[in-house]
């Protein structure tokens, strides 16, 4: 009796939830083109719990874990000048690699700093950069780091390949600019130039939790210690990562030597005002932004002193 049922049930299971293991990017995007309700399974650290809870019920699951999307490489850029060039990261780069890879540490240190705050070690071992960006959890660290870095993503479909700036990628709670037939295949961020410092600050009730508020900052100083460029974003405080560059500019960060204690309350106030959500999160975001800017600047100064 039980054999009969097992056979029927297996067939039933296949009929309702086929799981496609993509053998190539072409294969993956061809499935996505045919099945608009498909979901892409990468590290599975968000999607798998949603499946288990039956919150996501995709018609088709496309497992992309075998695709060759794991490389990390820095190019020198077309102008080959100081600060030029970009870092190319495969979408399947696990958070653990992001946190530990020497090229990322040197050329895209904000991504490394953010990755170290993601979940716990087990999650970092499996979770992927592309997965985190495509999932677009507003509390996640990596989307904010990408916005602060001024990075972009590579989207591939049967229609071709296009790029989308981080600022245009995140449209709302778990909503991105990816079309249903597109696969996020790569991430590009500018190489950090000389005099760059970064910081990622966050606070969460438990170490492995999504943060109440997280702040990603990258800034550049000149030989006098004056801030010449700043990129920053907050997570956990709105439906998308909040670009904080305008707030920091308004707070007087650009053009300043960042050793002035009058700056910190100014940053806190401006960033708090830029963050939605409840008061707790906005206030924390402001404070964390002040701390992050100071740490990023100190890091840049240390680097300059060592150079």
């Amino acid at each position, binding site marked *: 009796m*039980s054999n009969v049922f097992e056979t029927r049930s297996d*067939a*039933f299971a296949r009929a309702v939830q086929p799981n496609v293991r993509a053998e190539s990017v072409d294969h993956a995007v061809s499935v996505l083109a045919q099945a608009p309700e498909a979901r892409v399974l990468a590290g599975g650290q968000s999607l798998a*719990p949603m499946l288990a809870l039956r919150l996501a019920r995709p018609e088709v699951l496309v497992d992309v874990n075998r695709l060759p999307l794991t490389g990390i490489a820095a190019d020198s850029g077309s102008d080959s000048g100081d600060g030029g060039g970009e870092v190319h990261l495969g979408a399947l780069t696990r958070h653990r690699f992001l946190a530990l890879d020497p090229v990322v540490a040197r050329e895209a240190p904000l991504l490394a700093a953010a990755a170290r705050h993601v979940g*716990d070690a087990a999650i970092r071992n499996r979770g992927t950069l592309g997965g985190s960006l495509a999932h677009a959890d507003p509390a996640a660290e990596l989307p904010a780091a990408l916005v602060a870095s001024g990075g972009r993503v590579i989207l591939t479909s049967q229609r071709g390949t296009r790029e989308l700036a981080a600022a245009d990628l995140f449209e709302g709670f778990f909503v991105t600019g990816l079309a249903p037939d597109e696969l996020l295949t790569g991430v590009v961020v500018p190489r950090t130039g000389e005099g760059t410092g970064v910081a990622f600050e966050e606070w969460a009730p*438990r170490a492995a939790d999504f943060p109440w508020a997280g702040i990603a900052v990258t800034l550049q100083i000149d030989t006098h210690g004056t801030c010449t460029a700043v990129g920053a974003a907050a997570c956990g405080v709105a439906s998308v990562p909040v670009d904080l560059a305008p707030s920091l500019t308004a707070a007087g960060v650009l053009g300043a030597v960042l050793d002035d204690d009058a700056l910190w309350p100014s940053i*806190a106030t401006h960033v708090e005002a830029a963050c939605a959500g409840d008061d707790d999160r906005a206030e924390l975001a402001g404070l964390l932004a002040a*701390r992050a800017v100071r740490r990023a600047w100190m890091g840049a100064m240390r680097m300059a002193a060592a150079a």
Partner: protein
Amino acid sequence: VIGARTERKEDARFLVGRGQYLADHAVPGLLHVAILRSSAAHAEIRAVDTRSAAAVPGVIGVFTQTDLAAAGARRMGHLLELPGIQPLEWSVLATDRVRFVGEPIAAVVASTRAIAEDAVDLIDVDFVPLPAVIGTEAALAPDAALLYPEWGTNEFLHLDAASPGLADAIAGAPHVLHERYESHRIMGLPLEGHGAQARFDSALGELTMLASTQQPHQLRTVVAEVCGMTEASVRVIAPDTGGGFGNKQHFLREECLVAMLARITGAPVQWSEDRAEALTASVHSRPQVHEVTAAYDDDGRLLALDVAVTSDVGNPVLYFSGIGPSLVTVGALCGAYAVPEHGWTLSCVATNTCPVGAYRGFGQPQAHLTIERVMDRIAQALNIDPVEVRRRNLLPDSPRPYVAHGGARIDVGALEPHLDQLLGEFGYDEWRSRQTAARAAGRFVGVGLSVLVQGSAPTQYGVAGRFGSWEVAAVSVLPDGSVTVEVGTKSQGQGHETTLAQVAADVLGIDAARVTVRDGDTAALPYGMGSWGSRTAVMAGGAVVHAARELRAKIDVIGAHMGGTPDFSTVAAEAWWHAHRLPEGVAPGLTATVVYSPGRTIPVPNDDGHTNFDETFGAHMTAVAVEVDPVTGAVQVLDAVMVADSGTVINPAVVEGQHHGGFAQGVGNVFHEEVRYSDDGQPLCSTLVDYTIPGARESVTLRVIHRQTPSDITGGFRGAGEAAITAAPAVLASAVEDALAPLGVRIQSTRLHAHELRRLIRETGWRVDAVAFARVDA
């Protein structure tokens, strides 16, 4: 051997993933159960349509209470025997009405769990919504909807007691404080959820059930009752168990459901609770509000304590329900202190939430919070050191036992030297100095104290449930000199295979490695009480001592008869294989089964009106130092020390593990966890993203110093397992309040979550110094 820091025998399999838990026991043809649960907090059920679900390929059947009743299922009860309690019985599956989100309505049996869950989605229930009653205030409001209209109220039970001079003592006291303390709703969360697998052998007429339970024999009794079988025809086996914490002290409707489905289908059937079911539909714990009136004199000595306890018991369709723990609460309100006049009222209130029941600590953390808050309040009001206030109120060192209000026989050692040892180990004066320096620097450092006297090995037999204060052990020396110990307790990870082997080996005079301890199989012993209530060392330990002593005496007789100094295994072989040479009157073999009771408890009032629910008491005193980050509200525990007196310690490492684990849970209970509902009764914590338990990085090191005052019952043992989780809320509340004293923050609940402390701090007008925050160096 007793007292040795032996490595835990069971860890060899647990730590390499070779434990065999319920779901590891797959058998050919095993069918799986998924349960349709109520999505409504309070509703009438007009109809349940199972036709689409039954048509899903792979589904064996869809069952409602109608099917179970037709197959002979009987109703379930709470086994509470208390004056004035409202009448309540329930069926295995809900029929005409549901009273909490998660209440089971129908069951699908299918070839896989996934198919069963798919089919559950297709069951259509026609609900007629009723107003949801959430929280005791709403439940007791004059116009509240009633869970059980036949009661005419939502109050399930009301009891009170008072010493004759209570009112006069309060009226005549120089100082009286009125406070309200709340313990919030949390739950025991064993890593392995509930679960049961059953099969019915129609040829033998026997049902065999594997279940993840703390009390296999009592589960057997309940399953037999519900299935209309004899206890002899039901066998329950509890395999390796991944935690219980009281949650698995209850018998669930689901376990009886599995037994009935095995009878109906004739196939092996398994239900294994998933995390959402565990969080929303197993057992919650702790929600109580205490309205406290405490009278004291100019020296800070308590004159009277009167506490009105309101206990939210959820929909109390649970064995002993939230009432069992609530009875313990009202019995423990005076704690470690001599209180001349004492009274309490207890109101247990039904609400449209998951049933409330046991969690490690069992009503004691709430009582302990209240009395320790009162000690701190007196200290603040009179500007006396909180240590001194406690010292002045401690139970006197004689007589023993100290007979408390109501009749509890408290047999702990002298408390004042115990307190002095704690202050020394903790470095109390040094911490006060550090606190002064920290405050001067604008930092919020505080010190908290907990003086806990705690009953162990309890009985509530005749009052609530089937808690007999006895235990069964069978000890056998086999012909090769190896030893088996069978006990009626059930380890859920506490290390009983190690500790009870140490006890047997100690008495028998052999190496503990020769002893194999088994538990959890009702076929091995006629009955057993299971493990809960800090009872296993005291009760199973005592039973093993008595059985082993019986064998030791027989071995000595046989050895003397053999002449010379025959070794242990030679005597063992003699006893079994050479019966013809044994001394006259000595029966062959070496086996003894003992039913042991210390006999100290008085579960129903005696001629003096006294009751005593505990065989013995432990004494545990704890001090902590904390720093509160006023920006985030996060609390860092800087030091935590417990001087633990659980009598004779069988294995210090195991006892320390109990305290470490209990404290980790306590830290989680107050800093991270809360079971929350929306106003309309929807659970807001159905995953571990929402019910935030501490991980390793949130855990706190508790330093444990043993102080052994043997009890005068067999073995000298006292309970240990519930001490740290009971101490934690009180001691952490005490420390956090002390840390925030410069701001005037008062802690009146167990909610010490960062967001809550942050709110309390902001309410004082304190504001963040952004410069200081930005400049903190990591």
